[in-house]
């Protein structure tokens, strides 16, 4: 069982009386791409916030890379190798591409505490390599994010995630606000990651995209996991039925 990257057992999050996430058991294997689907408020983003350390779960276990982990903040999750692209992207508009890629973990030439001197050349080179590895197209590295299109911004955010995520990448609706061409570019990056054997969790509402990109689909409904489907054994109609509650997988019957 050593090829399981991430496993959650009974992961639960309550906000006051609201059960945002209830007893989620989830597994992700090495090199596997899994989509999380579900209606708004089904608990997808809540689930992601627990496993990226943005929030602390009410109860339940997270086992990452064979060890149980308890993240106190996003930095903890990042240290063990989990990186996420959030819907808000978390980019600084007035900084250029390398600065954004290395934001919060700048490479320094000379350590003087907060006044450490930055190693611009190394960061620029690393940025170029990272962008090439993820096949991201950016016209100019020294351009600020402000002057970029939505798709380019998304690509920078994804490149950052892919560069530093040593073990797991999570994308929360990466193409929600993008045009056709930009969406295609982001999907290409995901395919590149698949080819490189890097595991990924993708949250998406786009059925076509999900069927194009992932191996397995996990459906959330009202805070619970209601289905765990292999792409080969299911269809779009099926998935919709699980999302809307028309169907529930037998092994999750108690969740309905």
């Amino acid at each position, binding site marked *: 069982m050593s090829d399981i990257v991430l496993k959650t057992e009974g992961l639960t999050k309550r906000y006051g009386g609201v059960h945002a996430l209830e007893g989620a058991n989830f597994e992700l294997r090495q090199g596997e791409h899994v989509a999380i689907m579900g209606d708004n408020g089904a608990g997808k983003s809540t689930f992601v916030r627990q496993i990226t350390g943005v929030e602390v779960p009410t109860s339940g276990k997270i086992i990452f890379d064979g060890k149980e982990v308890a993240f106190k903040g996003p*930095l903890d999750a990042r240290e063990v190798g989990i990186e996420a692209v959030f819907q808000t992207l978390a980019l600084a508009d007035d900084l250029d591409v390398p600065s954004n890629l290395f934001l919060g973990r700048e490479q320094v030439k000379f350590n003087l505490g907060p006044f450490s001197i930055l190693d611009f050349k190394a960061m620029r080179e690393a940025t170029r390599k990272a962008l090439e590895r993820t096949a991201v197209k950016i016209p100019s590295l020294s351009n600020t994010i402000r002057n970029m299109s939505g798709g380019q911004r998304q690509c920078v955010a994804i490149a950052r995630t892919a560069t530093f995520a040593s073990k797991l990448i999570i994308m929360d609706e990466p193409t929600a606000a993008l045009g056709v061409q930009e969406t295609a570019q982001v999907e290409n990056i995901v395919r590149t990651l698949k080819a490189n054997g890097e595991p990924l969790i993708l949250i998406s509402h786009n059925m076509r995209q999900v069927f194009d990109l992932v191996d397995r689909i996990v459906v959330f409904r009202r805070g619970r996991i209601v289905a765990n489907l292999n792409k080969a054994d299911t269809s779009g109609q099926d998935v919709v039925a699980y999302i809307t509650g028309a169907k529930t997988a037998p092994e999750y019957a108690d969740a309905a």
Partner: protein
Amino acid sequence: MAKNSEGVGGLKYDAGKRSWPPEMNVFLALVLIVVAFETLGRLFIGDSFLFNSRADLDTIFNEQRLQIIILQVSIVGIIALGVTQVIISGGIDLSSGSIVGATAMISMSFAQVAMVNGNPNPKAIFPDLGWLDLPVIIPIVVGIACGALAGFVNGALIAYTRIPPFIATLGMMVSARGLAKWWSKGNPISFPTDSFASIGKGMMPVLIFIALAILFQLILTYTKYGKHCYAIGSNEEASRTVGIKVENHKILVYMIAGILASVAAIVLSSKNLTAQAGMGVMYELDAIAMTVIGGTSLSGGRGSIIGTVLGALIFGVIISGFTFMRLDAYYQEMVKGVIIVGAVVLDQWRQRRGGAKG
């Protein structure tokens, strides 16, 4: 490397399209204002603003005027260096003028001579403790510590209580002024030691201003601290998400601003050979004005020390120009207000245009 090989993934980027640095606009504005005064001077009062018009002096430029221009803005300019960093990181500092007042009073108390013309110093604050004729390092350290403490309080309030910087520093502005008045019950403090008096002598304020400007321009451009200033001013939430310790950074930024205000206070009280509770009134607004005129965006994320230095020069040229044109001091203040508002309007306009491109 060719100019247009910057892109990644086969995309080319036209290097010629790159806009010039925003400081260039500020510099052009400075040149334009100087030319305007030069023209107006020649037309209306038959004198040159920039060039030497006295027969008994063998210089090309009117050096005396140039010296006055830079000397009169250098002390507020030192404050503006700190205010620039605060504004770039998305804050505002209204307390610097009052910090100048309080620091000048406290630091001067440790810089007094024991004997004035053979009599004991009549203005001595600590005669009983014998804290007179102290080495110059003591008032400097005490002054800087005062500024750092005031800045720390500002920063900690903003970082941990999450109150708007405007309110936190407004509170400090009122309290520090109160402290300055209470310190010697409103009396001026004078008779500093010779070594203390030499700090602000002659063109020393200008040298200190330039040295600090270079130092902080380098820090903002090349260090982690500088990068985080721009990052937090640009997107505070994102900075927090990627793991920048935003609270610590804010405290550091306000401490640096406080320290720079206290340096201004030391230089100013040394130059004037006295400290008064009313010192530095309105300096915070002049410093903010210099910063904004210099192209730093009030919404954070953009700006530079070079811009602020140019902004300070514009400020100095305008004041000096009005005196040169023999216009009333009242006009100066009115026009100063117009320029500040104009600079912010320009910044807003620039931002909207920049946003439409994206």
